[in-house]
Each structure stands twice: as structure tokens, then as C-alpha cells.
């Protein structure tokens, strides 16, 4: 396991609904895994490299609940053991070393969770259950993903940032003269941090402008980070109970690349025709954030509190860096 990632954690790596009999690859800081679902609907995770000649297994296929390597057809069962080598003559025993690693997997909140660490008993944090709204008929979900040219810690922090909107997101530009952030309280657990902040409403650019009265000047946003990769942002528009929840995992592909997979939930305009609008909002926000986040130096958010200058409105980010520093034992997270 690369030392630049917190270990002994469950990582949300893929949408449950994306996992079928077709194998899919997962990359965490250069380390590759392959996921597939067997006939019983069980999710299986293996190392994505054939022990024979190193081919990536995710380009292969599933057969009898086993994964076939695309190169020479070696067949691996869910325990990672090779059970067939097509080129061997009958009676030739399969070498003991013909084995791929397996990893514990669970499903929760619409995500596949892969355990990275010693054994699930040593987990630093329980599998979170932060999305009870998913599946509730009052709520409509959209799924999406995008790739950031940034270190995953910077992406997570952009989701915790309560003071950038007036400068980075055009609908909030009108709020630059009232960009002061009221003091807010951060509550933490050993593996998460949460805060609720009050923010002036943006100028509406989308359907929301028809739904929200202008005198609703403030919205309440509850922001959570759950180590190692989960953010949850719940916006309460303060009008008829309308809420939007943005739930995302920020997967570290490498030092400078992060794959975000998100679920957006809304309890208003739950018709499918409004999905595109919801997608577009998330996408625009990402494009606007990425323009500045990809310039941040050093690549990884520093956990030492000397390199950067955090102020009161960064309280949530300070809490995140403390947690991160704890689980990475002060190791530098990036070379640059």
C-alpha cells in the first residue's frame, strides 16, 4: 500500500449500480484493483495484476464466478487462487504462487467499499452510513463523476471550503461585499468533522430561481468530511424544506489526479426531466473549482500548519488536516 494514503480504512471506490459481471478497475495512488460481481450478486475485489506475466485482469471476463486473465486465460476464483491454466497439460499441478491478493468489500449508501489495510478488524473507522435518503421515494438521485488535476486532499478541502464561493462561483460574485463568514462550530469524531454554516443565498441561475423566494437570503449548509475520501454537503434552502445533498468520494488516482464520484440528491423537482439541471450545476461548480484548485502548491494539503496560513473561516479544513495528520503520522503526502 502506498505510504501516502491513510491505511486501515474503507474506501468508497465505485457506484454499486456500476458493478456487474463486467470487471472494472480501481486505482488508488497507483495501486490497482479489479472489482466484479458474481452470480449471487456478491462484490469481489482482487489485485489487478496476473501473477503469470503481469497483465491487467480487468480486461478479462467472468466465468463460473471466476475471473479469466485476458492474456493467457488463467482463471482465478474469488479467493484469488488460480484454478485453471489453459496452456498446462492435464495433470500438471497449479503452482502455489499462482495467486492474486483479495480485499474485503462491502456495499453501503450506493457505493462499493474496498478495505485497504491489515484486516477489517483493525479498521480505524467503521463503514459510514451517511446517506439514508438514498432509496427514499421523497428523494431523487443523480450519479456523476469527473476527474480533477489535483491531489485528493485538495479536492476534499474544496468541498469543505466555506469562504471561496464569492470569488470562485459566478452566482455568488454578488456576495463579495458580504463575504464574512460567521464563526461556526466544528464537531469531530476520531475520523470525521462536521460543521453547519449560514451563507447568503446566491443569485439564482437555474430552476431554483422559480422555486425560492428572494427574501430567503440565507441557506444553511451542513458539511461533513469522513476519512479517507467522503464529503457530504447538505444544503437547506430554508424554504418549504427543500434540500440538496451532494455526496462524493474523491479517489486518489495519483499525486496529481483525483477521480470524484458523486451522488446528488434532491427532495424538490424530483421529476427525471430536472436531472440534467442537477448534473449541470454540479459540473459547473467542479469546473469553476478546478480552475483554482489545480494551481495550489504544494500538491498535497500540508498537515504541518507551518507552510500555509489558515484563518478562522478555515476551521473545518484545520480539523480535516489534524485528522489526516494523525492517520498519516506526519508523513509528507506528496513529493512536491
Amino acid at each position: 500500500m502506498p505510504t501516502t494514503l491513510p491505511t486501515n480504512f474503507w474506501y468508497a471506490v465505485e457506484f454499486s449500480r456500476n458493478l456487474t459481471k463486467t470487471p472494472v478497475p480501481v486505482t488508488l495512488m497507483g495501486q490497482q484493483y479489479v472489482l466484479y460481481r458474481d452470480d449471487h450478486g456478491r462484490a469481489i475485489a482482487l489485485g489487478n495484476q496476473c501473477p503469470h506475466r503481469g497483465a491487467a485482469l480487468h480486461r478479462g471476463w467472468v466465468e463460473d464466478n471466476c475471473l479469466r486473465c485476458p492474456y493467457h486465460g488463467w482463471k482465478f476464483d474469488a479467493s484469488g487462487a488460480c484454478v485453471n491454466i489453459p496452456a498446462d497439460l492435464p495433470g500438471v499441478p497449479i503452482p502455489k504462487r499462482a495467486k492474486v491478493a483479495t480485499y474485503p468489500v462491502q456495499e453501503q449508501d450506493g457505493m462499493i467499499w474496498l478495505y485497504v489495510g491489515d484486516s477489517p478488524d483493525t479498521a480505524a473507522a467503521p463503514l459510514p452510513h451517511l446517506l439514508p435518503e438514498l432509496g427514499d421515494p421523497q428523494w431523487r438521485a443523480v450519479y456523476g463523476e469527473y476527474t480533477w488535476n489535483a491531489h485528493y486532499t485538495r479536492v476534499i478541502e474544496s468541498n469543505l471550503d466555506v469562504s471561496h464561493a464569492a470569488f470562485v462561483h459566478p452566482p455568488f460574485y454578488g456576495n463579495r461585499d458580504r463575504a464574512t463568514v460567521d464563526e461556526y462550530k466544528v464537531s469531530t469524531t476520531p475520523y470525521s468533522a462536521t460543521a453547519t454554516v449560514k451563507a447568503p443565498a446566491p443569485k439564482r441561475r437555474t430552476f431554483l430561481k422559480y422555486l425560492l423566494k428572494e427574501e430567503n437570503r440565507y441557506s444553511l449548509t451542513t458539511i461533513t468530511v469522513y476519512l479517507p475520501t467522503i464529503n457530504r454537503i447538505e444544503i437547506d434552502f430554508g424554504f418549504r424544506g427543500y434540500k440538496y445533498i451532494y455526496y462524493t468520494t474523491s479517489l486518489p488516482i495519483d499525486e496529481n489526479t483525483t477521480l470524484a464520484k458523486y451522488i446528488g440528491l434532491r427532495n424538490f423537482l424530483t421529476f427525471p426531466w430536472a436531472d440534467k439541471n442537477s448534473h449541470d450545476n454540479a459540473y459547473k461548480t467542479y469546473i469553476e473549482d478546478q480552475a483554482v484548485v489545480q494551481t495550489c502548491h504544494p500538491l498535497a494539503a500540508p498537515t504541518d500548519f507551518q507552510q500555509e496560513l489558515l484563518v478562522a473561516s478555515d476551521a473545518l479544513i484545520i480539523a480535516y488536516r489534524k485528522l489526516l495528520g494523525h492517520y498519516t503520522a506526519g508523513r509528507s503526502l506528496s513529493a512536491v
Partner: protein
Amino acid sequence: MLRNAWYVVTRSAALGQTPLGVRALGEQLVLWRSPDGAVQAMVDQCPHRGAQLSGGWLTAGCLTCPYHGWQFNRAGECVHIPANQGTAAIPKRAQLKTYATRERYGLVWLYWGDLPESQGIPIPPLPEWGAKGWRAIYGESEWPAHFTRVTEGNMDSSHAPFVHSAFFGLREEAQVPPYRVETTPWSVSALTLSKPPKRVGLLKLILKRDRPVTTAHLTGYLPGVNRIDVDFKFKGYRFIYFGVHTPVDETTTRTQWIGLRNFLTAPWVDGHSRRNVVKTFEEDCDVIASVRPAIVPFHSATEVLVGSDALQVAYRKLLRQYAERGWWHSDRYPSPCQPSLV
């Protein structure tokens, strides 16, 4: 890189009201003009959360970070943190490192060093710039090479018959007559004679067929500036190339150059003149990029230098003098004064 010296970071004309991010001297810098037109230069990294300030804008004469709107004045001090409550003081550490700048010859120069400017290496003279009868053109190019190698390439009196196609005809007569090197505390120069090259392009029309010689007055200024003053020995026609080579980092060099001519000064000739310089660059680039060691050795025993290399020998001697004063700064090549660097 040599400390206590001026380096060119952009052209004056390229810097307007919009902050400009420039990579130079191994650092990411932001350049901008305050409302009075003065050029400001600082480190392009917000002390708050590390965003590049060059993506930002000016607010009331202050550079504004595009991430959280922190505002910095021309001294690099943070003067406004929008998210802070009214009573919160601005931390002292909210401060950007700044650099002194000057505009000369239509170029923006940045002083890089720890000694006062008056004790550093001055900006070289260029009296023809702006003088009557001279026309100036500008250009920029990048080299995958160390700036000392680029500077030496521009003062090389013996490579033309082998590298530059206009001189290929002279390979049988490639001898370089001895020349005398004049040295000042920050420059080396020599007047060299050469057989005239094949007349190419417009020169075909304006130069006489039978000229015995062309002279080139070659000068190298510390840290990496070249002046090549070519006298065609015909009607007083001259072409002056003034090239400033600034390290982007220790493996890449950016050249801002000015071409000055006192003949065919009409603007329509500019493209022509520019093409000549660019072609010369292109011909030099491959060989200069291939040179090892990548940085010129300051120690005379490392390479085999001959009579025609007298100018390079003098340039290295100067570099060495300043290195011995402790003005040399390099992570990659910390001790070029030692023999045989790799």
C-alpha cells in the same frame, strides 16, 4: 543561477492590467502593474491555501487571490481577508515575497539576489535602442538547455560553418583568426572577422556580391546576456542581436531577444528579420540541447578549449569569480568550479 543579477521575465508589452504568471528562476512568479503603471513582481502562491495569484485580478490597486479573495498590496502585504470578521487582525505571515523590477528596452527585468541592487551586476547597456535610425523587433524562444550553454552558443565564433546553413559553404575556410578579448567586471567581448555568408533573403538584394569580410562584435554580459553586433562592411549597415537568457529552471532557458537594424527600417521587413533569427535559433537548438555536462564547467580542465574559444574561456572565468564570491546558486549544479562535473 547567479545571484545579485537582473533577469528578464517578460516583455513590457505583454504585461497589462491582468496579472501574469511566469515561471522563471525555478520559481512561479506573478507579475502585475499597479494603477500607476509600475511593474510588481511577487511569489505566485497565496500564503493562505497555496493557490496561484496569477489567476486573480486587481481590486483597488491590490492583487486579489482568485480562491478566497485575499488582497495584497504592492509591498506584498495582505490588506484584506474577506471571510474574516471585522475584528480579526490580519496575521503577519500573510505576506508575499516581492522582487524589485525595472523596465528597460521594452523588457521587464527582475532583480534576483540578497545584496542591494547597487552592489549587484547591472542591466547591460543598449544605446541603439530608441536611437534615431534604428528599428527594433522582439522575439521569445525556449531552449531545453542550461542558460550558460545558451549564452556561450551566442558568443561562439567557430560553429557557423557546421551548424548554420548559410555558412555551410565556408567549411573549407573555417579557421578563426585570433581575436582579443576585453573583459570588464561583468562582461567579455571581442571583435571577430569572418568571411561573409551566402547572401540569403533580402540581404541578396542589398549587399554587394564581393565583400571581403563581415565583422561581428560579440559580447557576453553576466549572468546570461548576449550582444552580437554585425557590421556588413557595406554602407554602414549593421544588425544588433540582444538576447537575454533567463533560466526557467535548471534545465530550461527562455530567451527574450531584440533585433535592431539600421537598414531597411520599414515595418514590412520585420517578418523577414525575425525569420532569420528564429531560423538561427532552430539550427542552434538541437546541438546546444545535446551538450554534456548540461551546465558549462567553470573549471578549465573539464573541457578542451582552443584558441577560437577565448571568449568562452573568459566568460567561464567571470562566472567562476562570482561563484567563488558565493553568488552561485544551484540545487542541481552546486559546485561547477570543481573539475569534471557529470
